[in-house]
């Protein structure tokens, strides 16, 4: 049994199914992008319910790698940091050395003991998570993420 362009019925079904999955993935990506954009000014940098803070990030997008500098004041050692990477995202969780309270700030905020940093970062380009490297010094985490697509050498005649 053949359909359009000489494809079998099952090939057509498979193609349509793949298209639906692609569209769904794109929608999920878009939602993730909205949820994890770099500097969402309208969102506070803290979450009272989860007692967590959003760390500041400086991004250097170089030709072959992306470098993230993540500011983690009050995080003492690398063992208190969890870092997960996919091809498109980096997620950080880190524990503060002691609960931090912003004395005198706001109405309810002054009563919150912030205990962790959390942030999911959508990367501007795909990376190779297995080759990612990180170093932690003076409360700043540097993450080097090699890009997936590297420039190919062109022969000059």
């Amino acid at each position, binding site marked *: 049994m053949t359909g359009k362009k000489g494809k079998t019925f099952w090939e057509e079904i498979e193609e349509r199914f793949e298209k639906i999955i692609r569209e769904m993935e794109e929608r999920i990506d878009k939602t993730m992008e909205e949820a994890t954009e770099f500097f969402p*000014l309208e969102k506070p*940098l803290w979450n009272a319910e989860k007692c967590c803070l*959003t760390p500041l990030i*400086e991004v250097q997008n170089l030709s072959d790698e992306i470098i993230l*500098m993540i500011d983690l*004041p009050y995080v003492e050692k690398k063992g208190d940091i969890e870092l997960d990477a996919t091809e498109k995202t980096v997620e950080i969780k880190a524990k503060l050395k002691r609960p931090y309270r912003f004395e005198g700030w706001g109405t309810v905020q002054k009563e919150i003991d912030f205990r962790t940093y959390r942030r999911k970062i959508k990367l501007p380009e795909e990376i190779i998570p297995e080759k990612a490297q990180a170093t932690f010094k*003076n409360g700043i985490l540097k993450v080097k993420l090699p890009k997936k697509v590297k420039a190919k050498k062109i022969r000059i005649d």
Partner: protein
Amino acid sequence: MGEVNIVETEARKIENPVIVIGLPEAGLVGTISCMYIIKSLEMEEVGYIETPFTYPVLFLHKGKIAEPIRIFQKNSIFLVSSEIAIPPEGLFSLVKKLAEWIDRKKSKLVLMLGGIPTPNRMEIQKPRCFGVISEEKLKDILEKAGVERLGEGIMVGPYSMLLREAIKRNFPAVALLAQSYSNLPDPGSAASVIQALNKIIGTEIKVDELLQKAEEVRIRSRDLMRRTSDVMRRMGKARELETPSMYI
């Protein structure tokens, strides 16, 4: 849109004052160093700057209402510090008004405190401080203080505009800029700037406490840094990392 107004709540007639300026920029170096100088020298609040562009914002400090951009004074030093990121569309009118005020004060020296975005900042233990001067005779001041003059580069932001005004109006101005993070608050860089300022105007501000409390400063500066990053992006601050054209 309304005008920028400089309001002096306490009239202080000081002849030829030094005027220190710290605006939020790379690493919040200007703002962090000014906050620390105000505390260390026990400076008194003597005025503020009204601006139509800093949004309907007021600050509360220990229950007292405070303007976002304030003027402080101690002995022969005035200090202007902002706790709010100044949008590019407001810079021109603010700098013009500030320059007129400096002119009226007949300032003997204007010192602008800030940072220079430095990509390998994490590897730098003690950030170096560089100087940009509005007139050649100021190079001796830098030399005596051991501050290296910035030879080539591109400056973007309020200090570049204020230096231009300094040249036009003929008041002496120096921008003291230390190596810093761009989008992360940098108390270490602020300490280097204060040490350079000490050497230039003879103050004896110890930076130990600033360095000890660096984590506290960083965790409390996150929101201002985020807003400042947005403003710096809009004014094209990344151009400071570009190579300047060469005259051969």
